[in-house]
């Protein structure tokens, strides 16, 4: 049967036509076998062009469409839907990339770029000739979302998911929820306190009976496909019973003989083996830190009803339709000696300093020395020229300035020196910077190639800076405390990127598909990212992304069913001799052995098959193909490229 294919060659404004002679391309492909019409268009993606293509398909009974424009990453779905609206099967559409992989890559050689476009389009036409209509599989989805990480982003997402009617599993690695926010004290921009905000979230969570909280829980396995995932979760024993009601808790705290560094206070204080991350931590019962507990039994003696040292590690399987990763950040830990950190007592990170402020009563002192002068050194662990962290951590300028405003408010007599590179109080945060300047805070600017030097000066520490704002003059400050304004790094998460197969960027944060088009989606369909695990953010921005991920997860699961990509393996049962190679190579358990007409053959479970094609080259009898990438299509494309081009 003679085919009736429509070919559209896009100018993309001038992005293509400035380098590729689109008229010549049209001439060269319009008489190809199977082509019914070939047109050039200024913007193939524009609404009017889409309408024109639909009209062409309907008026001329076209049975295949090729659009040569940009990368299929941008517009494959756009034009598949054009085909669909015109009554074609979306898979009878072929996208040819003549922009990223032609006009732009070969903008130095228009003649060759034009030839390449012709060859690529001919390949596309061949593919369109061989393409078969494919129908997506519709599968039911599970009404449930796993939120991994119980900080502010995860807690907020849980509430919103619950309100849209989805069941939520909130999985937190630590024994307590809240993440980093309770460590912070007053938050920019409302001055609400971190632990109050977490309390607000927690109270909302416990009101909702479709949210299940797992603390001390880590994901160790992940399988299945979008809409039907299975998570293996390991839960550490807490050794404290749920109905903990021990009147002697204070006494236990005193008598527990184990003392370890308190990570909540970044090592400024010690805690016991039985602990709460902070006094009003949630859930409101303490936990026993299994690694450090010596099993001395003192606590159990005092409150036998409240403890259970026979608790074992639990494992459970959760079935969910989608996953949101909200694994958060850790403050950058300066290297030994970096701006005197770890070397001099009076050098702290901003996060430690905020804990110090929280722990102080009445007056601010450190190592029993009253604090009067503070030097804040900015961009520690961010914007590194030689180090790994090239990125800006976004929240730290505002955080440091907000801190110095709080200092002024609480202690009035403290003088703050800010040693910065650029002050990045973007948007309304600028007001804080203005207020800080009004307060008399002193700002000194240094260049990345000439960072401040922190060194010993008698009993004190001195900070020397070549201040750009006063013509590079060297200024020496003798502060009582040096505060390193450290940035964000992704929080250690036990290798979740490997478990979920979600890529991370050069900055080691989770990678979104596209910062504008799909900012909370990952390459794994149904797995979303939100909060600071995706990149540095302040709390407001964290919540924006958290709620955005809810919007996406809810869109995915709201209808109860899901259409799956029909690009899966297909087996020619006549050829199949069941050698088992395909079954062995498949990591998705998508292949089963079946007896058919007296012989054993392989069959594909389409709900599990991901269409990777690993089974294709290992098949001894050449019985497997991937739909959309069949031999006929690939070989046809090769022929299309190789056909001679007249100059």
């Amino acid at each position, binding site marked *: 049967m003679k085919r009736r294919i429509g070919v559209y060659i896009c100018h993309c404004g001038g992005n293509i036509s400035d380098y590729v002679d689109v008229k010549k391309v049209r001439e060269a492909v319009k008489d190809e076998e199977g082509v019914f019409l070939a047109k050039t268009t200024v913007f193939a993606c*524009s609404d009017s062009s889409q309408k024109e293509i639909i009209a062409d398909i309907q008026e001329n009974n076209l049975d295949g469409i090729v659009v040569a424009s940009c990368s299929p990453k941008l517009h494959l779905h756009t034009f598949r839907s054009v085909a669909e609206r015109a009554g074609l099967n979306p898979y009878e559409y072929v996208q040819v990339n003549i922009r990223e992989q032609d006009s732009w890559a070969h903008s130095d050689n228009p003649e060759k770029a034009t030839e390449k476009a012709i060859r690529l389009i001919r390949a596309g036409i061949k593919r369109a000739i061989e393409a078969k209509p494919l129908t997506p599989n519709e599968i039911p989805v599970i009404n449930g979302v796993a939120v991994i990480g119980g900080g502010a982003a995860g807690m907020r997402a849980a509430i919103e998911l619950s309100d849209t009617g989805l069941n939520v599993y909130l999985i937190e690695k630590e024994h307590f929820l809240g993440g980093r926010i309770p460590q912070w004290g007053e938050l920019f921009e409302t001055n609400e306190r971190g632990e109050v905000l977490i309390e607000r979230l927690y109270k909302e969570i416990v009101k909702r009976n479709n949210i299940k909280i797992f603390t001390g829980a880590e994901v160790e396995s992940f399988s299945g496909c979008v809409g039907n995932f299975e998570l293996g979760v390991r839960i550490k024993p807490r050794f404290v019973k749920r109905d903990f009601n021990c009147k002697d808790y204070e006494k236990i705290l005193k008598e527990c003989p184990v003392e370890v560094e308190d990570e909540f206070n970044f090592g400024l204080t010690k805690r016991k083996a039985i602990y709460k991350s902070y006094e009003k931590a949630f859930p409101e019962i303490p936990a026993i830190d299994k690694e450090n507990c010596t099993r001395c039994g003192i606590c159990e003696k005092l409150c036998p009803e409240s403890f259970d040292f026979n608790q074992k590690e639990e494992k459970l399987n959760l079935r969910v339709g989608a996953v949101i990763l909200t694994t958060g950040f850790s403050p950058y830990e300066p290297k030994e000696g970096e701006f005197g950190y770890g070397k001099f007592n009076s050098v702290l990170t901003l996060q430690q300093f905020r804990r110090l402020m929280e722990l102080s009563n009445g007056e601010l002192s450190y190592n029993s020395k009253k604090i009067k002068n503070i030097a804040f050194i900015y961009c520690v662990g961010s914007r590194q020229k030689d180090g790994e962290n090239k990125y800006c951590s976004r929240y730290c300028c505002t955080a440091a300035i907000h801190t110095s405003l709080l200092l002024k408010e609480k202690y009035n007599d403290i003088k703050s020196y800010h040693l910065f590179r650029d002050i990045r109080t973007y*948007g309304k945060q600028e007001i804080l910077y203005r207020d800080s300047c009004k307060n008399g805070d002193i700002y000194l600017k240094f260049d990345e190639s000439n960072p401040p030097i922190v060194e010993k000066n008698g009993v004190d520490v001195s900070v020397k800076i070549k201040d750009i704002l006063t013509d590079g003059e060297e200024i020496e400050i003798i502060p009582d405390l040096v505060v390193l304004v450290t940035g964000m790094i992704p929080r250690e998460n036990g290798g979740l990127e490997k478990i979920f197969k979600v890529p991370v960027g050069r900055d080691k944060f989770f990678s979104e598909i596209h910062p504008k088009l799909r900012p909370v989606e990952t390459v794994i369909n149904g797995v979303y990212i939100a909060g600071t695990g995706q990149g540095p953010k302040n709390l407001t921005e964290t919540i924006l992304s958290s709620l955005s991920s809810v919007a996406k997860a809810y869109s995915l699961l709201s209808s109860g069913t899901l259409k799956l990509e029909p690009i899966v393996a297909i087996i020619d049962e006549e050829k199949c001799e069941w050698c088992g190679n395909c079954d062995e190579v498949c990591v998705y358990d998508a292949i089963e052995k079946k007896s058919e007409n007296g012989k054993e053959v392989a069959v594909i479970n389409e709900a599990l098959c991901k269409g990777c094609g690993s089974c294709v080259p290992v098949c001894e009898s050449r019985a497997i193909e991937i739909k959309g990438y069949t031999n006929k299509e690939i070989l046809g494309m090769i022929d299309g490229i190789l056909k001679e081009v007249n100059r």
Partner: protein
Amino acid sequence: MFHLEYDVMVVGGGIAGQETALNLADMGFKVIIIEKEASIGGKMILLSKVFPTLDCASCIATPKMSETMRHENIEVLSYSEVMSIERIDKKFKVKILKKPKYVREDLCTGCQECEANCPVNVEDQFNFGLVGRRAAYIPFSTAIPKTAVIDIENCVLCGVCERVCPANAIDFTQEPETYTLKVKAVVLATGFNLFPARKKPQYGFGKFPNVMDAMEMDRLLSPTRPYNAVVRPLDGKIPENIAYVLCTGSRDITAGNPICSQICCMYSIKQAQLLMGALPLADITIYYIDIRAFGKGFEEFYQQAKDMGVQFVKGKVAKIEEIKETGNLIVRYEDIEGSGGVKEAEHDLVVLSVGMLSNPEAAGMFKFETLELDEFNYVKQVDPLLNPAKTNLKGVFAAGTATGPKDIPDSILSAGAASAEVAAYIRSIK
């Protein structure tokens, strides 16, 4: 044509409004978008490329616009304005004014015959006055809906368009129409206004031809650009030495806008990179106070511009003067990083990196209740930390730059947040 009841009304069809509408529509809600211009798209569709990925703005925005337009759960009313919003029980009664386009949208094919034959020439608002347009015109080449509109204020009523229109779509008898809708929730995605560069008279915008604002430059760099080249407005000469003046009308109490606009550093760096590509011989100097490259990939983008040879000079520009003979400009600035003091430099083109101002018009829409604005006239977020889309009015939410300066990625996230909050709200009132 369209129904009179919807779940959600989104006011504004820019990128934030579209994203909100698409999210809600994908969840199964019925949405109506009210857009005051003749096309949806807002400001983003007019841009060249966008930072930090350098995707062309049209390539991202056009598919979204066309998806918005054809989504079965979304209705778009363009060239329409919200006259009033009145709360009745748990719903809102909304009055909409649809301005006459004098073109029947159901018949117009966007062939542009009327435009080609219209004798009137006026300033093109979508090209920020860089070029002219006709009185019968299509807003811009990627407009959606791509139908013509007649600008009746400038129309001379010659009737040529009516005669040449092959689809018989011109209809001078159209009158303004009003509709009353019922909706359960309102999302304000009313966007921002550009800072008018004329409000900084010391920079000479509007007086010296070779001083332009950054939006004009973005138009010159965009694929749908008016001249297909980057040229000086005065003489069409290819510029060789271009200056950017950051913080024009931002962080500036004297200009009435003390806050930072959040986008100007980055779009200036983007334009500088694009200019380096378009005009490899040109020198580009960016006068800045602080470079605020704070988002994901932004700092790397800034460093890349430095490596490409863009000059960054820390200095506040005090005044710009023109050299009469050449049309070149003397930029007088306070040199902070060098030897200090006031310095002068000559450039043949100056781009003013203008910031964002709030668009408070949403406040005027509500009947019998008051929408709270913040001290900068943006829509006030009553719980910015946990419910960022919430306003002081129950059932009324805000997305995008309606609540404060934002770049495109942040606008999209805020639209996502607004849609989740709206979805939960509508379920709660059922």
